[in-house]
């Protein structure tokens, strides 16, 4: 082995603590960078990636099987501009009923022999593809109550209205980015799901040579439908529409993930650079010895770069594995939200992070060692033997006058003796505290968002206040498994009001009726919610303006204002079943249901609105179950029932964000703590002789621990004090960006979530990170044997 090789090997082996810290810091930083980088790539056009992965359909066309022949449809796949096609697949719309007898919303069922193909290669998330006559594969987007926490496999779906009342068993759950079906069955099963006297339709999926613009997709549509009778084309859907919908759904998450991703990457570079620079700087005396033995500056540099790269390479390997392990569950969650097909870390992220980590280590080690290599040998040899520069003496003198135990004041002034190291630790703590502040702020904001979205809160309901029923349908099972019902048309509304008023436990109540109206300038109708009674407890949050107080006044969500180009104070013309009604917009309300296009007003604004539901708040201390029983008997003549309102729970998106926030915060705090650990390790190693002197003079292990821990107190407090406003500023950027991306305004309570006491606690979080980071070296210092420490140069 060459002399250089021996030096590198002995350097790695003898300086075990620093070798371990470099390895650990690199591992943590690489893990954080893999996670951060993965989130950034996952957040970059997730729909486009998923669409590419699945060879999504640029256009899906549904053809009426009674008005076109299979040959005509087949021929369309050869049309000009078509690069690939799938189908024709037989398709029907069928309404199933679950085992509890609840009607489920109608499903588009497609007969496909397998999930793959040149277009719309469906991803099977769990289970198997449907091959038998009694098997069905549900889409993860199916509106039939797919509960993500429970396996859908084995669920029975009955079709009682069809001949033979077929019952199919769910054998798989799949995702189509092109959203081509609510469920898939074997082609032969379609016949069993087709009503007598009708013919199954065809579904054809196309990819075009050019489909980037609406015009290009339209040209493709014209080409493929040219050979099919116009009246036979019962529906087409462009991938551009899907992409727009997907963007709206995922936009909320992107600014949040980008913020955490960038934080992770910046911290990784900071920590690795700091650790390596510190380690090389701490080896100055050794460099002096090597030069005295005849090593050239270039050899010294090479030796130290190699010494840093050996543990860094091991740390990088460990970090990549750890980063992938941490990233996978997070990515699986983002995949579900983004509707992406895969949840694997992009290999490019791994490659880039590994290369970047090693380059950062090599460059930092090279820069530090180059500086050290140029030191005069005699100066390098003197390091550690002579007193260091007289930095921090004033601070030490001032600290010694503080009315605190000497073991504490000895530590308090340490940052001033090593300002560069203290600044590096400070930066790590600032980032960590900022991450925690951002996370706490996001959690509070999202709780506010949830609470603001969770309106129509009540103790007791009659009918479902959050109605999603097609006209004429009395009750269905909602996507989350709850039964959605309405008060029957035949019920006497005045009698219901009287029955509620007659209950002694009633505190307040209101009724709500919903009817679609056409708004001038909009192509799709907007649902109007007409209220009667005291709506004050319903929990609607205003973004601007006020709640309506009289018929003719309405409040609308931000999306409505944007879509109609109106503002609070403007009027809007509604077409209500052919009758024109002019209303004044008096407020902007926070509501994202109905794509943010709902209109909220007094029931008297529209004529003949019949309440679909009632929401009741009971007096404090009222036995809700007893109240419901009593009200139920009073409502019996009206053929409707009351029920205790159940919590709708937190939305999946918000739960997902909360989960990701917790994971990311933990990783970032760990990285920040490692930055402190590194600084304190270098400091205690450098001062081991002084520690020995302290101990020889009677410093107990506990006092030694106190000295080391107090050496990070100032840095922790200042880091917290700087990190908290930084985190708040980041929150101030991220939340509005999330709101903008989601296309809605938000109530001010969503942005102003930090309370003074909480800020103090968050500021102390910097101290906690600092102390946690210093614990290990403090314990090491406390355990160091005095005689050994005194012998250390």
């Amino acid at each position, binding site marked *: 082995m060459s002399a250089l090789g021996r030096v590198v090997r002995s350097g790695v082996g003898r300086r075990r603590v620093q070798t371990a810290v470099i390895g650990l810091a690199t591992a943590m930083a690489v893990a954080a960078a893999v996670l951060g980088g993965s989130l950034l790539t996952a957040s970059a056009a997730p729909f486009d990636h998923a669409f590419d992965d699945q060879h999504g359909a640029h256009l899906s066309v549904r053809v009426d099987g009674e008005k076109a022949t299979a040959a005509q449809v087949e021929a369309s796949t050869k049309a000009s501009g078509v690069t690939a096609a799938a189908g024709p697949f037989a398709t029907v719309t069928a309404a199933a009923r679950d085992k509890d007898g609840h009607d489920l919303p109608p499903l588009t069922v497609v007969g496909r022999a397998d999930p793959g193909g040149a277009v719309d290669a469906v991803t099977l998330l769990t289970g198997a593809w449907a091959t038998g006559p009694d098997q069905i594969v549900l889409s993860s987007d199916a509106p039939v109550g797919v509960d993500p926490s429970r396996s859908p496999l084995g669920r029975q779906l009955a079709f009682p209205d069809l001949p033979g009342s077929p019952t199919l068993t769910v054998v798989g759950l799949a995702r189509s980015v092109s959203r081509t079906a609510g469920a898939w069955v074997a082609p032969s099963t379609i016949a069993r799901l087709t009503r007598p006297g009708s013919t199954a339709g065809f579904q054809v999926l196309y990819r075009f040579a050019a489909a980037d613009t609406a015009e290009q997709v339209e040209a493709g549509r014209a080409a493929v439908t040219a050979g099919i009778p116009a009246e036979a084309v019962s529906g087409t859907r462009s991938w551009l529409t899907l992409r727009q919908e997907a963007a709206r759904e995922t936009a909320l998450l992107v600014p949040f993930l980008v913020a955490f991703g960038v934080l992770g990457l910046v911290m990784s570079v900071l920590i690795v650079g700091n650790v390596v620079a510190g380690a090389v700087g701490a080896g100055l005396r050794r460099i002096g010895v090597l030069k005295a033995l005849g090593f050239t500056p270039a050899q010294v540099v090479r030796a130290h770069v190699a010494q840093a790269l050996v543990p860094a390479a091991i740390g990088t390997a460990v970090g990549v594995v750890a980063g992938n392990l941490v990233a996978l569950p997070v990515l699986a969650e983002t995949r579900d939200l983004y509707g992406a097909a895969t949840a694997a870390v992009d290999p490019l992220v791994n490659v880039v992070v590994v290369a970047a980590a090693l380059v950062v280590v090599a460059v930092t080690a090279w820069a530090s060692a180059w500086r050290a290599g140029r030191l005069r040998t005699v100066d390098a040899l003197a390091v550690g033997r002579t007193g260091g520069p007289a930095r921090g003496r004033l601070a030490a003198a001032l600290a010694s006058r503080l009315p605190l135990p000497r073991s504490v004041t000895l530590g308090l002034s340490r940052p001033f003796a090593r300002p560069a190291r203290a600044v590096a630790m400070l930066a790590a703590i600032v980032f960590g505290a900022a991450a925690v502040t951002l996370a706490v702020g996001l959690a509070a904001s999202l709780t506010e968002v949830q609470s603001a979205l969770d309106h129509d809160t009540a103790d007791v309901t009659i009918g479902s206040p959050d109605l999603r029923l097609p006209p004429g349908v009395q009750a269905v099972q909602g996507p989350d498994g709850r039964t959605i019902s309405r008060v029957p048309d035949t019920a006497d509304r005045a009698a219901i009001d009287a029955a509620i008023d007659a209950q002694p436990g009633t505190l307040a109540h209101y009724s709500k009726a919903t009817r679609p109206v056409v708004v001038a300038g909009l192509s799709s109708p907007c649902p109007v919610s007409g209220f009667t009674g005291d709506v004050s407890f319903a929990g609607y949050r205003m973004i601007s303006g006020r709640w309506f107080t009289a018929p003719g006044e309405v409040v609308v969500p931000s999306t409505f204002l944007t879509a109609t180009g109106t503002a609070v104070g403007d009027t809007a013309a509604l077409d209500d079943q052919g009758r024109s009604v002019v209303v004044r917009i008096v407020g902007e309300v926070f509501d994202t249901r109905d794509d943010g296009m709902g209109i909220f007003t007094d029931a008297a604004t529209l004529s003949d609105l019949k309440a679909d539901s009632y929401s009741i708040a009971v007096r404090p201390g009222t036995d809700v179950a007893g109240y419901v029983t009593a009200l139920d008997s009073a409502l019996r003549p009206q053929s409707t029932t009351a029920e205790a309102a159940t919590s709708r729970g937190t939305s999946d998106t918000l739960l997902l964000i909360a989960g990701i926030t917790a994971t990311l915060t933990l990783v970032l705090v760990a990285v920040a703590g490692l930055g402190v650990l590194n600084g304190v390790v270098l400091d205690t190693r450098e001062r081991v002789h002084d520690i020995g002197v302290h101990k*020889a003079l009677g410093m107990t292990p*506990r006092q030694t621990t106190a000295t080391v821990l107090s050496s990070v107190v100032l840095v922790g407090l200042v880091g917290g004090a700087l990190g908290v406003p930084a985190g708040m500023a980041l929150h101030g950027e991220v939340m509005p960006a999330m709101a903008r991306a989601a296309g809605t305004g938000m109530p001010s309570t969503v942005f102003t979530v930090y309370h003074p006491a909480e800020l103090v606690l968050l500021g102390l979080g910097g101290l906690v990170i600092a102390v946690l980071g210093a614990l290990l070296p403090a314990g090491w210092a406390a355990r160091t044997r005095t005689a050994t420490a005194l012998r250390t140069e």
Partner: protein
Amino acid sequence: MTTPVIELRDVRRAYDDGPPALHDASLTVLPGEAVAILGPSGSGKSTLLNLIAGLDRPDSGTVTVAGVRVDRLGEAASARYRRAKIGMVFQFFNLLDDLTVADNVVLPAQLAGMARAEARKRAAELLGALGVDRHADTYPGRLSGGERQRVAVARALVNRPPLLLADEPTGALDSASGEEVSALLAELNADGQTIVVVTHDLALAKSCTTRTIRLVDGHVDDDLTAGTAR
């Protein structure tokens, strides 16, 4: 009968698999004695000093100092023992560069919980008595070797320990400074301070101690009173 300040009985200490650094070592030091431990490198002098100072523990045997069984102490207890029972003076002074002379001297007193004002008063007395009071607010790096060692002696005495341990106290000094320190130790002993000096300097042993113990290969070879060690 006078209780010994130091009593070692059949002490043995070995490191790793090597020959014992100290074996069958027994030693008694009475109050007011000034004892020099002499011996060449590797004779076990430092091991003996570390055992008395509670910096190390014997493999067997007992070490009792000022009534304390030092060989049984844990880390925290031995730190408290050092504060209360011994003062240490080192070859290379071991003053803390970032503290002033006065702050160096008061440090052991403050670690022991003495009020700052009281500790500073005591330090001022000692620095005055040792002739370095004009350097109280100076940093150690600016002092001569002899002055630094005087400061170190002041620091060792700040808690009024019954025993002063000195490890080659003149080893890093020029001859003039060495003589000054030697005289200082003799003076302290004359005032009743029990002193143990570890050295290989026979002249120092002669000038400031009343008894000389010679260590050879880890055991006590000679134990001579003043005037007989030559």
